């Protein structure tokens, strides 16, 4: 007789812990063919707000870690994902309906994306900052710093590669993230949370909330203790992202708009080379002056 499988309960990832939704709600997640996969936690407004609190608490420590250290932690995520690759491939295949080869390619690209961003941790400061030759006897230098807590609406379609592509550039510079995962394809995100939890990523640096972005996004967009918001995940949803951008103006959040093609929000092609743009979206330039003199 075949063994009865032990099935996992899928929960949120907030502050380094795996709580259920405070609302006690869950929703059915199906695979690409509509077959039942699991019950995922249906995150609520309060879960999103709890995640912001956790992200804020973790932010100073993460930003204060050395760039070398952050780079090693991000690289460690790639290592841990590599060792669980078969699981990721199976989950991406089920979620996105890809054939095994293409699912494996997506997972490979997601792992490699962590490696790409890991290497940036101690380089973007030099590339984006520098000494300013002011017309006077002053030492004058500009350097980028993390903006703080970033809310991320993760892409709906690309459940792992897309997710990694939006989260890694947020945290590499010392920001912390509150991520609303793909509504219909949350399982790879939850497994990513398990990888993050075992990769020396401090609790609260990445918080993953499964559930309906249409329900949680307005609260994150208007939240006064969120410094920036990434609207990438509105593509292929009915979410009126202009309303989110308008709400974000209440505390002048930095807004990363979705990619617009022919007037509509579309999900980017995640197989393209990432560039620096996403890192730059969540940075502030600080300029420091000091007189020179004998």
């Amino acid at each position, binding site marked *: 007789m075949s063994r009865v499988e032990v099935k996992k309960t899928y929960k949120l990832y907030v502050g380094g812990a795996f709580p259920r939704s405070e609302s006690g709600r869950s929703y059915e997640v199906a695979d690409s063919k509509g077959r039942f996969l699991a019950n995922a936690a249906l995150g609520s407004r309060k879960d999103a707000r709890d995640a912001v609190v956790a992200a804020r608490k973790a932010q100073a420590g993460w930003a204060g870690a050395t760039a070398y250290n952050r780079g090693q932690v991000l690289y460690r995520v790639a290592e841990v994902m590599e060792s669980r690759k078969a699981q990721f491939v199976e989950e991406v295949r089920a979620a996105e309906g890809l054939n095994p080869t293409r699912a494996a390619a997506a997972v490979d690209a997601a792992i490699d994306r962590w490696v790409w961003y890991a290497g940036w941790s101690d380089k973007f400061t030099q590339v984006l900052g520098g000494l*300013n030759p002011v017309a006077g006897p002053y030492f004058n230098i500009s350097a980028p710093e993390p903006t703080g807590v970033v809310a991320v609406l993760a892409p709906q379609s690309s459940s792992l590669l897309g997710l990694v592509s939006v989260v890694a550039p947020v945290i590499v510079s010392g920001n912390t993230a509150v991520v609303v995962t793909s509504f219909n394809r949350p399982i790879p995100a939850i497994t990513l949370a398990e990888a993050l939890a075992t990769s020396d990523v401090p609790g609260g640096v990445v918080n993953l909330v499964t559930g309906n972005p249409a329900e949680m996004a307005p609260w994150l967009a208007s939240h006064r203790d969120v410094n920036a918001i990434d609207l990438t995940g509105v593509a292929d949803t009915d979410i009126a992202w202009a309303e989110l951008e308008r709400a974000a103006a209440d505390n*002048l959040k930095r807004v990363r708009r979705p990619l617009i093609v022919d007037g509509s929000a579309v999900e980017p092609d995640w197989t393209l080379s990432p*560039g620096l*743009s996403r890192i730059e979206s969540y940075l502030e330039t600080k*300029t420091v002056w*000091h*007189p020179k003199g004998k």
Partner: protein
Amino acid sequence: MTKFEYAPAPESRAVVDLKPSYGLFINGQFVDGTGTSFKTISPATEEVLAEVAEASAADVDAAVKAARAAYTRVWSKLSGADRGKYLFRIARILQERAREFAVLETLDNGKPIKESRDVDVPIAAAHFFYHAGWADKLDYASLGPNPRPHGVVGQIIPWNFPMLMLAWKIAPALATGNTVVLKPAETTPLTALLFAEVCQQADLPPGVVNVVTGAGVTGQAIVDHPGIDKIAFTGSTGVGKAIARAIAGTPKKATLELGGKAANIIFDDAPIDQAVEGIINGIFFNQGHVCCAGSRLLVQESIADEVDRRLKRRLQTLRVGDPLDKNTDVGAINSRAQLDRITSLVAAGEAEGAERWDTGCPLPEKGFWFRPTVFTGVSQTHRIAQEEIFGPVVSVLTFRTPSEAVAKANNTPYGLSAGIWTEKGSRILWMADQMRAGVVWANTFNKFDPTSPFGGYKESGYGREGGRHGLAAYVTTGEGA
């Protein structure tokens, strides 16, 4: 001993040729607006300087169309090197006509001639000179692959540094290949209109720079115009938020340089005399009409009494009065409306229990004036510690430890600038790291340079102006995933 008084040392107005009325500058020509007109006055004397056209929505539309045509037909086809040469020309003409610009700025704005002459106008010229050199080097600016202009940029600038803000806005926009519709503030339109003449003298192609004068309604027409690709705004946080809401969901980009409530932090090992000069420069420069002004003075408790004594003694030597007098330190408040705002916030400071002191100096009978004012006994919750006064008023708070100074300095929704005064190098660097502010001045204050990026954190806005960073706001690039 007899006290020697200063003799009057007025700068001559003869260099300025004021016209009785000014039109709008659209497509390279001065044209009559279709709206009404308004008067611009000297805030030091309340004398009417000129009548200025108020641009209507139709006028703004004409300006945007002229800018679009100039962009499509001329400016986007020029080489970067040729764009740069126009900017070099403009820089040179500004230098040649520097005294004229300085006197006109002081007349219209009320700021001391020594500031318009030594700060505003020379740095404005320097901005054009600096950006001229970028025009043919954008591929080397690390802006991303294939940097391209947005198209037509709407620029709305404030009254505190009219000419300097114009330069901060127009120079990078033109260097990167955009064309411009610029609105100066309603109380200070004259130097922008004189700049339009400079564009003519430089043979800048018509429509590349358009100047539409007016107030908030004109600004709104620019923001709402569908032909505008990007907004660059300097002004209040309230208006900045309104602009961010107005362009939400549109393809329009924005950079916003907004208000501030900077902490100027004095440690007990600071060189006190220099720090006192820095405090005064920080808050009384330009009558305190400075978004990055050091309006919250944080003094370490052990030296609070000494700083208070020396500051007040030094303040009594400041000369408040005729802005055209070369010895004047503090000029006129820019408008009656601003004077009313300052007066009401100062009244709120007293009502909430802070202790008010001012120099008691004599003030001219006509015009808008406010004595340099110091509030002590200020707590963090007082309105004068939270709200931007935008006038010659400093609120003094104390602290004991560096960590307390950091907590108090960052306890504001703003994040534009900060000052640190200490002789200890490691403390400067640590403090600079802790400040949630875009510009940190250590053992100095209120320094500006075209090569040095300026702009805020948090509700002080987003985007930078100046330096390589300032170019980024004016280009779009190929993007990856």
